[in-house]
């Protein structure tokens, strides 16, 4: 396993195997009668659903009860209210994906201060420290995902091109890492390309931001979008403007898979492994609740997906068959 990035405090990554649960660990967890709550940014995306499935399933294997699952709808105020309410419920642990940085830092710090183990997914509000304010961070190798997307998009760009980078305006560890890595790889390996960064403030404005960027750059030859949902919105906006621009993104959502399989505009995807990440988050939580040392940062490598391996990648990542449209596009249905 090669992890390209460093953790939010410069930590070296630990492999998911570091928090492997043995049968005796599961038996101890079951005997302890543990209760945990889950707080996610959204429950609407494929990524969130798979992550949740991985967490809940693994906790079930350990006899740990999930007492609440909160959908924050990407809203810091909702997350703060949810965390404060859950603190009063006094679960043994909370698994949370912080939806912002400074805004939600204090609420997360209150969880640990109340003696509840806090396991973070994907993002660490600045100032919170592992071992003190939270147990561990579980995330994909987001720096590696950005680099993988750049490598995948490069063959579609020619010798010298105007390349757009559609980043996320919020200060978020995962999307920051992807943007930095994409730009770094391009500057080092394709120095003749011209990179132009624009950032969307919210999901609903991703298409608009992409259109504005395309208007500014009539010769746009490629686009990187930091995750798949805004990439789909950007693709739709560009197509409706009559533009055919190859797009690289992160995460193999169903619509992204269909676009990739059908020949574009999404041409390459660096995919996270949300189900496996959910399993790892659950194992880390149980490991911490059994009072064993957990790594500060557990990272999972990404999967490079193109039209040629989209079917098997979809199955590996989502643990379910690829959408019928993808199977049709790949001529796998008779």
């Amino acid at each position, binding site marked *: 396993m090669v992890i390209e990035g460093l953790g*939010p405090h410069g930590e*070296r990554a630990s492999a998911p195997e*570091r928090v492997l649960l043995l049968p005796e660990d599961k038996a101890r967890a079951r005997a302890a009668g543990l209760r945990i709550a889950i707080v996610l940014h959204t429950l609407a995306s494929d990524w969130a659903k798979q992550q949740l499935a991985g967490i809940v399933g693994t906790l079930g294997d350990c006899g740990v009860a999930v007492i609440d699952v909160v959908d924050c709808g990407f809203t810091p105020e909702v997350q703060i209210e949810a965390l404060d309410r859950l603190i009063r419920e006094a679960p043994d642990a909370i698994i949370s994906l912080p939806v912002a940085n400074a805004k939600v830092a204090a609420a997360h710090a209150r969880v640990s201060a109340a003696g509840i183990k806090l396991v973070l997914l994907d993002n660490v509000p*600045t*100032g919170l420290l592992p071992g003190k304010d939270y147990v561990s961070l579980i995330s994909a190798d987001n720096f590696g995902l950005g680099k993988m997307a750049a490598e995948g998009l490069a063959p579609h760009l020619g010798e010298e091109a105007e390349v757009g980078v559609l980043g996320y305006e919020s200060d978020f560890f995962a999307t920051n890492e992807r943007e*930095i890595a994409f730009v770094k790889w391009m*500057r080092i390996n394709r120095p003749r390309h011209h990179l132009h960064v624009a950032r969307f403030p919210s999901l609903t404005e991703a298409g608009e931001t992409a259109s504005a960027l395309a208007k500014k750059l009539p010769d746009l030859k490629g686009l990187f979008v930091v995750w798949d949902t805004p990439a789909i919105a950007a693709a739709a906006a560009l197509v409706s403007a009559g533009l055919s621009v190859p797009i690289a993104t992160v995460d193999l959502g169903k619509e992204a898979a269909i676009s990739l399989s059908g020949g574009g505009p999404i041409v390459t995807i660096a995919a996270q492994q949300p189900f496996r990440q959910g399993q790892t988050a659950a194992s880390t939580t149980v490991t911490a609740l059994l009072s064993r040392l957990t790594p*500060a940062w557990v990272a999972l490598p990404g999967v490079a997906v193109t039209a040629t391996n989209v079917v098997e990648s979809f199955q590996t990542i989502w643990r379910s068959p690829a959408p019928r449209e993808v199977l049709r596009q790949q001529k796998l249905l008779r």
Partner: protein
Amino acid sequence: MPATAKMDADMHPRRKGRPRTAETAAPSLVEILNLVRTEKATTRQELERESELGRAVVADRLGTLAELRLVDESELGTATGGRAPRLVRFSANRGSILVATLDQTALGVGLADLGGHLRMEHHEAADLTQPVSTLLDRLTMLFRWILDMQPDAGELWGISISVPGVVTDAGESFFQTGTPPVLPGWESFPLVEKLVEGFDVPVWLRSSVETMTMGEFHSGAGVGHRAMLFVKIGKRIGAGLVSDGALFRGAQGAVGLIGSVPVSSGERHGTLETMAGSEAIIRDGRIQAEKGLSPILAEHARRGGEITAVEVAQAAHMGDAAAIDILSQSGRMIGQVVATLANMLNPELIVLSGSIAQSNDILLAAAREAIYGASHPLVSRDLQIIRSQMGSSSGLVGAAIVATESLFSPAVLRDWIMAGRPQAHPQFEALRGRLEAQTAAVAAVMPPPKT
């Protein structure tokens, strides 16, 4: 140059005759600002008591500081019988400091407010043996990226960098006026000068041990303590000392070079760094893997993985006996040397840092055993020995503290406070003038570009 800055620059050298209002106000402004900044006083009444200045003077100076946007009085405190007092708060967001840590294998960047709190940070793998110009390009790009991502941060007031080597005092100047030869190649490349030109702010450099010590003391395990010994374990092993709340810098800033202390283990002799540092751990890990004595490391190598110190630490964590032995030996040797320091300095707290110490309990346990075993009972009675939880963030926070402590030290602050921004300090203006003159001189001897 802004009018206020001009006025401030004109203040030096002191002229004969009646002093100007600005000149007489500066010392009390400095005192009041620092009382507010360090939270020794949080109301007007407390300021009058602590500064022994009259009500009218305090009110006048707070008015000036509010105009300079350095203090804020919008918040109400708790009433203690009567009207609730207005709280006087330092506006930590008035300015910001770009910070960076340069390590042998990693680069970290961040943006901090004037209270030393990080607003944002990013770390990535880097190779410090690359040309300095490449390093500067990367650093500049990441700095620009952070500023772009933080449009609401205060005006940029400084750049502070943690470097893997001793930085001796910058002489009379409160910031770096040139690039010290901390690393190979730095003697012939104007890294500091390029940053000053590129960002128009003063630049500070400090050794990573010093910045990490400062960071740990202000934001990590050291909070609430007065005497702390910090030990960084990596390729190099160094120590930092905080005594009575202040970093001890020695005669030239070369404190805590304990990696050079000779140690022995059985038949082997060498310096602490070569015997117990990360390179020794890597070397021993490879030998044990090759001999087949470490199944986990051997398997890792067989799959094409590189054996690093973190790999050895992880193998030890998984129960690999040879890896456990390597880390125990390293911990014991470090502990023996640190025990000598503990007996000399009587710290309340010893913090072990570095990726090996942070990712593994075995080295920490062995070091603890050696330190407690060799310390005088009075020294070990209440001594805590823990590992850092801050990682490389301690270097970023510490770098920010280096800059803010320098900017707000009374001797420096009084020379820029009336202008409201440190770029107006005469020493910085002099440096900028010198760099502009150099650029002009180079441009004058260069032939004009062909058209």
